[in-house]
Structure formats: C-alpha cells, structure tokens
C-alpha cells in the first residue's frame, strides 16, 4: 500500500488502484456524516478535488492522488458515511482509478514512511 501527504492510501489491484483515506485522517476528521463521490468515467488530474467529505466538524476535500480515470466509486459510502470512521483502510475505500502513469506510485510513501510522516 502507498500513502500520500494528503493522508490518502492507494492499494494497487491489477491495473487499477483503490483509493481511500488513512485511519489517521479519519480520526482527525471526526464522525463522517456525508460523502460525495465523483462519477465513474471522470478523467481527473493530480490534486483536483474529487470527493467531498463532511464530518460533524467541517467539510473537507479529497484530491486525486495522481492523473488518471475514475473507474468505480464506493456507493455504500453515500448511504453509510460512518464506515469511514469504522474501517478507513478497508471497506471504506472511496474510488478506484486507472493511473495515467503507474510509475506515479513509485514516488509515494510506503507505510513506514507514512507512519514517520504523521508521527
């Protein structure tokens, strides 16, 4: 699994990656009450806001971790946004995307580096 400084995780699965936010980020956000997901098929560029999350505290955006195309979104989150707090790095993934350049992953942090980053 790879991590970004924006507290996203990326898990490669065949030729796509699954993207979510880290448990650390979920805890900082507090109870999540609303998630707005992009349309599958949307072409996104790195740092473009693709997901809106509202917690009991505030609204935040999730940016695309790299250039690519959204292939699937986790519809279950729309009905049960609290999943983000319960299983941020498992069932509560946000979207799957096909990276324009799979080597973008190489520049991202591994788990050890991310742990150091949030320490």
């Amino acid at each position, binding site marked *: 699994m790879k991590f970004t400084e924006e507290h996203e995780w990326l898990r490669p699965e065949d030729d796509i990656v699954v993207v979510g936010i880290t448990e650390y980020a979920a805890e900082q956000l507090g109870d999540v009450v609303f998630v707005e997901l992009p349309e599958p098929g949307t072409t996104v560029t790195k740092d473009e806001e693709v997901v809106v999350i509202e917690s009991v505290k505030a*609204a935040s955006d999730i940016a695309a971790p790299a250039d690519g195309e959204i292939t699937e979104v986790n519809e279950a989150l729309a009905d049960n946004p609290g999943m983000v707090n319960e299983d941020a790095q498992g069932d509560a993934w946000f979207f799957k995307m096909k990276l324009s350049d799979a080597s973008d992953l190489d520049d991202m942090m591994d788990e050890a580096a991310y742990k150091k980053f949030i320490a």
Partner: protein
Amino acid sequence: MADLRRTGLYDLHLELGAKMVPFAGYEMPVQYPAGVMKEHLHCRAAAGLFDVGHMGQVILRPLSGDVADAALALERLVPMDLLALKEGRQRYAFFTNDAGGLLDDLMVARWDDHLFVVVNAACKAADIAHMEAALSDAVAVEPVTDRGLLALQGPGAEAALEALAPGVAAMRFMDVASFGSAFGTLWVSRSGYTGEDGFEISVEEAHTEPLARALLEREGAAPIGLGARDSLRLEAGLCLYGSDIDATTTPVEAALLWAMQKARRAGGARAGGYPGADVILSQLETGPARLRVGLLPEGRAPMRAGTEVFAEESGGAAIGHVTSGAYGPSIEAPMSMGYVAAAHAGIGTRLYGEVRGRRMPVLVAEMPFRPATYKR
C-alpha cells in the same frame, strides 16, 4: 492557549481525554474520546454531563430587600414579565439594544430574596457592566465567581442527580431550588440546552470537581463536549447567541416572541420600557422583513453557517442565509436554521441552499427538529 481561562474542571477534562479548544475566552472540551456523534446519542439515551462553568452567574440583590423590586428593575433591560415570575421559577430572557437587537440571551430565576441570572460566557463582562450601569439604583449586581456550573441532561439525569441531591426528582421544567448535599449547597434548575429533561447545577468551586466525578460514576452518565452540545441544541431548535441571534437581530425576526409575555407588549400592563421597545413593538405590528426558520436539506449534505439561501434553483439574489447547520445524529439528517425573507418563511416552502456552488433543495421546517422531553 496562554491567555485563556480555565474552569475548575480543567484537570478532569484532560484526565477524561478531552480535546480542548478555545471557546469564549476559555479552554473548553470540544469532545472526549467517544466523539461528537456518540456523545450526542448518549445524552439522548442516558445522561450527559456538561461543564458550563464558563458561563456567567450573577445575583441581582434588591436594595429594598423586596425581590419584586429587582424584578421590576431588570424589566428595564429585557422585554419579559418578571413581576409575574414566581418564586422558585426560571424564565428565558434577552437583553435588547436601542435598535431592538439582542445583546445576549439569559436565564432569570426568582429566589426568595434575589434574582439569579445565567448569561453567556462571551458576553458576561459586558452583561455585568450593562446591568450595573442600568440597575444600580435598585439592585446590587453580584457576579458569582466562586461557583462552578454543571449541566446534567438526558433521560437518566433525574435518577443520577436524585441519588446525590434527594428531592430534585420532584422539580418540574424551569423550577429552581437549592438542595443540601455532600457537595455543599447546590442551586439547581430543571432546565438545559439540549431539549432533554435535565438540570443545571451551580456548585461551590471546591465541590465542583468532586460532584462532577460523583455524577460520572452514576450509571449511564458520560461527559459531553461542546461539539455535541451544539448538535443537541440545534436539534432542539435553540439559538446560539453570536450565531443565530446577535445585536442585529430583533426578537421578532428571531421568532422569539414566545418569550415576550403580554404585559410587555402593546396594550400590556407594562408595555415597552426596555431598549428598542419602539422598534420591536412596531415590528410586531407590521411583521418583520425576515424570519428565523428551521431548514431541512432534502439531500444528505449539511448546510453550514454562511450558506446562502435562494428562492429559485437558478438565478435571483439570495433571500436568506444559514446561521447554524450541522448533522443531527438523532434525526439522522442534516439540519440548519437561518434567516429568510418573510415571504419565503412558510413551513414547507422549498428553498435552495448554495453548497459548493450548487443549489441544493431545502425545506422550511418546524422547530424543534426533535421534540423536547422536558418534565412539565
């Protein structure tokens, strides 16, 4: 947070794992490890303990010795009938300004020989100065600085407090009474800011933390932070001073007329006689241009404070704005309150809140969003 004040429960908050934030000049717990959502639901299901020791407690002692004189004096500053307030009872009130706006909202309790008021933390210095300037010919204004203030709210509040202060169970909503206890003399009111049955308890400084600990040891009692306090009061349709009401909102616009008794309205026994009475009474006659209303978004996205409200899905100028907005854990939906032009304030009117550049449908709705469970 060097310049911030602390209540007597500061160490207890840290021990309980609270996240502390600056609030009204104090370092206060915004949440405990359970988090806002669980704290909110816990308060509605069992009992929640809140530290409200940052709020201002003030005794108004009549110079004449007759509490009716203190009541009459305070009537100069608030559009309430305080003469009719019976001993052992409390009433919601607000200080008005010359423009008919609101300087603060407060609770006024009538005791045997004095009035006891509780005001908002952020306003307390100004409120005390305001009362001293206006009332000193009739009352001594005595800030109470040696007592803490706790709120215990929820269906389990009565049993928890009754165990420590026998007799409180007999109180009704808005009653006030004092009780001897192992924690000194408690000044108790059956009221709160959550829409739940519950109590606010003024307790001597030295006994504040022991009382808080003893209450937390009762079955079902848990500490609740400012985060859940805000979603609880919003579900209950209660105003937050500084957000939903302020110096620019009149009681007529703020839909707080229920708190203005007949005696202080046109034709009443003591009509007017408070700052801004001309503005307020004429607005009462003609109707306000805007009104505070409840707003229930049709979608799931919360509409937070500052969200502009429109009459149409596209085009046109804003006809109002949201002053408080959050997710309501008990109603399991987003909820807001705000001001809209009177022509659009009818219950059931579909309006549009602009969230992230898109107009989302929202219905004008009755408040409270969740019915209160006061013990009347």
